[in-house]
């Protein structure tokens, strides 16, 4: 029993926080296009990310067609295949997932969930989006330059990335890729500063850090990580541009290309790998942590139960964020490193499994004896847990050096990372869109179409990636344009490949149902009202839906409780909004 100074809330005057000066849009252009309103910027980010994501989806179809029916499609030659792989990976990881979680959900949810009127630096926020758009355009332009985009693989390892054997290496492709990344990082930094400072300085009165919804914790921690990790990619890109354009030898060893000795010498390709993976591994968690946060909120809201172990969840997010900076070299086991080095990184990698497992247990325990509503967001959240556990377990295999070495270059790795950082975060994105679409547009998404979309996506992605593990165990190599005469690969592997391809086409096509739903529900969807899910967090308590410019009307909200007061015994309803003072409603400990 804890003593609570009940009733003290009424004495507190509202909105003591200095209200921020809002900019006021004067024309249609500054309201909807060059807008400084985080909500508009969020939608712009999301639409751009989804559009470029569709390009990456089509690229994955083309790759699958080649793998299942080698030689049938004349236009997919080996060079094209590598270009498809590279662009698919780069777009999905950076331009879709990172941009959508941080730029899209971050922009929309952070100000609303912490009770701010807008981001702290709205102008920089607007620039962030437009610079991101320029980065995307540079990336797309790479498809149309002579020689096509780079085919170096999304890791862009030198020296091959800048040599003539790789598509785009001696042409413009690699230059467009590197410049696009540099521009993206500059734009992201502007947005990232906003997300961090808004969480630090923009919170409404009463919103302590430990009252923030886990969504905000996830996005906040991921942004801090991204701000520290993206500079590594920036440095790597800049140094590779120097090597490629100005003839320096940061990464380039002495090398003979087409019988001709190049002027490079002494550079270290391993140095690039260190820099790249110093960014690359935190990047996995930059994508995963917002997903963790969002899924916690979806589960708690739709199971009508407070999140189990809120403090543990917060600590786990922070610890995962910190640990992810000292595991990068587990991507380099096969680069010939010192075995002690490998041992160190294998240990840190396996330690990360502990906070991650805590999160999974807490999700499951939140569901335990909850009043589970199988709404679409809940279905996607459940699908996420299953998929994430699956992908995470194969990650434990690969975290061990001895297991990783034989599996590293097989389809097993492809299956692993698509499960854990492809499908799992995408499921959360879908769940989050079904959850927050009513707030963004004021209308519900169509339920029937949603169920079609969910079941095809969930079962379909399993049909795609589950068999891939078996292909990997059989030794089917990844990155190969065609298998050719590979004696150890049985014919059954080939029929499995055809099956996977058909499922990939099918699942990809099912996403059109989702897109149709997004557009159709915009005008035809059921009206949602302000709080259709009867949720506690601040974004559902706005005076208007969709929230107007400035979010909160005249007075800023005041927060009196944490974000998870669901099914409090004795309360008149099964949720108590964060803005509800404690006056008449019994608090949890009164009955406890």
């Amino acid at each position, binding site marked *: 029993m*804890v003593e*609570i*100074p*009940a009733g*003290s809330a009424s004495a507190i005057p509202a909105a*003591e*926080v*200095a209200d921020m000066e809002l900019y006021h849009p004067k024309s249609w252009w500054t309201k909807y296009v060059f807008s400084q309103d985080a909500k508009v910027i969020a939608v712009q980010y999301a639409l751009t990310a989804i559009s470029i994501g569709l390009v990456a989806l089509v690229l994955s179809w083309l790759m699958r067609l080649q793998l299942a029916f080698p030689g049938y499609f004349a236009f997919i030659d080996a060079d094209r295949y590598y270009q498809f792989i590279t662009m698919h990976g780069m777009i999905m990881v950076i331009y879709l997932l990172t941009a959508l979680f941080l730029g899209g959900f971050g922009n929309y949810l952070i100000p609303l969930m912490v009770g701010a009127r807008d981001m*702290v*630096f709205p102008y920089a926020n607007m620039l962030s989006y437009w610079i991101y758009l320029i980065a995307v355009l540079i990336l797309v332009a790479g498809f149309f330059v002579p020689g096509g985009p780079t085919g170096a693989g999304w890791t862009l390892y030198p020296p091959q990335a800048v040599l003539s054997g790789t598509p785009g290496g001696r042409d413009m492709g690699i230059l467009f890729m590197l410049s696009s990344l540099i521009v993206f990082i500059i734009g992201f*930094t502007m947005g*990232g*500063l906003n997300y*961090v*400072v808004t969480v*630090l*300085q923009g919170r409404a*009165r*009463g919103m*302590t*850090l*430990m009252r923030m919804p886990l969504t905000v914790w996830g996005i906040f921690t991921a942004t*801090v990580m991204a*701000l*520290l990790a993206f*500079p*590594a990619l*920036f*440095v790597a890109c*800049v*140094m590779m541009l120097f090597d490629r354009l100005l*003839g*320096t*030898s*940061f990464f380039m060893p002495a090398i003979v290309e087409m019988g001709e000795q190049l*002027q490079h*010498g*002494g*550079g*270290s390709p391993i*140095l690039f790998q*260190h820099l790249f993976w*110093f960014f690359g591994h935190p990047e996995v968690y930059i994508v995963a942590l917002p997903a963790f946060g969002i899924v916690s909120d979806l589960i708690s809201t739709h199971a009508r139960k407070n999140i189990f172990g*809120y*403090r543990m969840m917060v*600590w786990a997010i*922070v610890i995962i964020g910190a640990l992810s*900076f*000292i595991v*990068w070299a587990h991507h380099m086991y096969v680069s010939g490193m*010192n075995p002690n080095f490998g041992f160190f990184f294998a240990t840190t990698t396996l330690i990360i499994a502990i906070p991650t497992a805590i999160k999974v247990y807490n999700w499951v325990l939140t569901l335990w004896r909850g009043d589970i509503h199988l709404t679409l967001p809940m279905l996607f959240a459940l699908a996420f847990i299953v998929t994430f556990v699956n992908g995470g377990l194969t990650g434990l295999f690969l975290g061990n050096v001895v297991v990783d070495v034989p599996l590293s270059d097989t389809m097993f790795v492809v299956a692993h990372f698509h499960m854990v950082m492809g499908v799992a975060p995408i499921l959360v994105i879908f769940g989050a869109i079904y959850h927050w679409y009513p707030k963004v547009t004021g209308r519900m998404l169509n339920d029937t179409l949603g169920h079609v979309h969910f079941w095809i996506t969930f079962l379909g992605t399993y049909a795609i990636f589950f068999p891939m593990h078996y292909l990997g165990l059989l030794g089917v190599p990844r990155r190969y344009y065609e298998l050719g005469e590979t004696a150890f690969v049985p014919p059954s592997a080939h029929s499995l490949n055809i099956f996977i391809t058909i499922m990939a086409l099918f699942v990809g096509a099912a996403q059109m149902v989702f897109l149709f739903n997004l557009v159709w529900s915009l005008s035809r969807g059921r009206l949602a009202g302000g709080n259709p899910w009867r949720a506690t967090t601040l974004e559902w308590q706005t005076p208007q839906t969709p929230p107007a410019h400035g979010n909160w009307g005249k007075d800023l909200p005041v927060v*009196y*409780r*944490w974000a*998870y*007061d669901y099914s409090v015994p004795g309360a008149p309803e099964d949720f108590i909004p964060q803005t509800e003072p*404690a*006056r008449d*409603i019994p*608090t949890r400990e009164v009955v406890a």
Partner: protein
Amino acid sequence: MNVMLLFLAVLGAIILWWMAGQRLTSKPWLEASAIQVAATGSRDVPGLAAKVGLYVFLGVVGALFSLFISAYSMRMGAGDWGAMPIPTVLWFNTVVLVAVSAVLQWARIEAEDGRMEILRPMLALGFTLACLFLVGQLQAWRSLIADGYVLADNPANSFFYMLTGFHGLHILGGLVVIGRTTVRAFANDIPSARLRLSVSLCSIYFHFMLAVWLILFALFAGWANDVVDLCRQLFS
């Protein structure tokens, strides 16, 4: 990567120290209605958001240069490293940058005290000195090129030009901000809160860029070689 890890350790310590004050062990589910002002009370100070924003940004810039220096120390271990001489003008530039920092600090104090007649020339002087630093850096490049130390000849040269270049770009960005602040100082009769904030942000930024420059200078001059060697041995 050890320099970067060192930087992260320092940053991690700062984050831990900050988090220790955030009541992360509180039990929010037991605290309906008890509003804690402690965690959020200090932010009514005007301009604090901008200051926090600048510090976070400096964290990012620090990460950037730590990574460059990490790459520098790792690449240094290869056999083809040939140290390059330090042009005399770099000493002069260092003095100039120290002067910029000092002048801006002075301007900050004058702005707090509201003495516009001293603040204006101080800002203009800071702007001029920062320009002088950039010109000096270009002069250093020219003299090195004249002596035959070109970019692609040796990794030491490549790093020198790249790092001084990036540092110069950051100074250039700061120069734009000082310029705007100076214009505003000449347009106003009294030091508004906004102007005072701009001046203090400029001075913080240039103190940081001075620290970065001193570290880079120590690297180029070879004084930090022992430290770099030590770092490298720790991890191999």
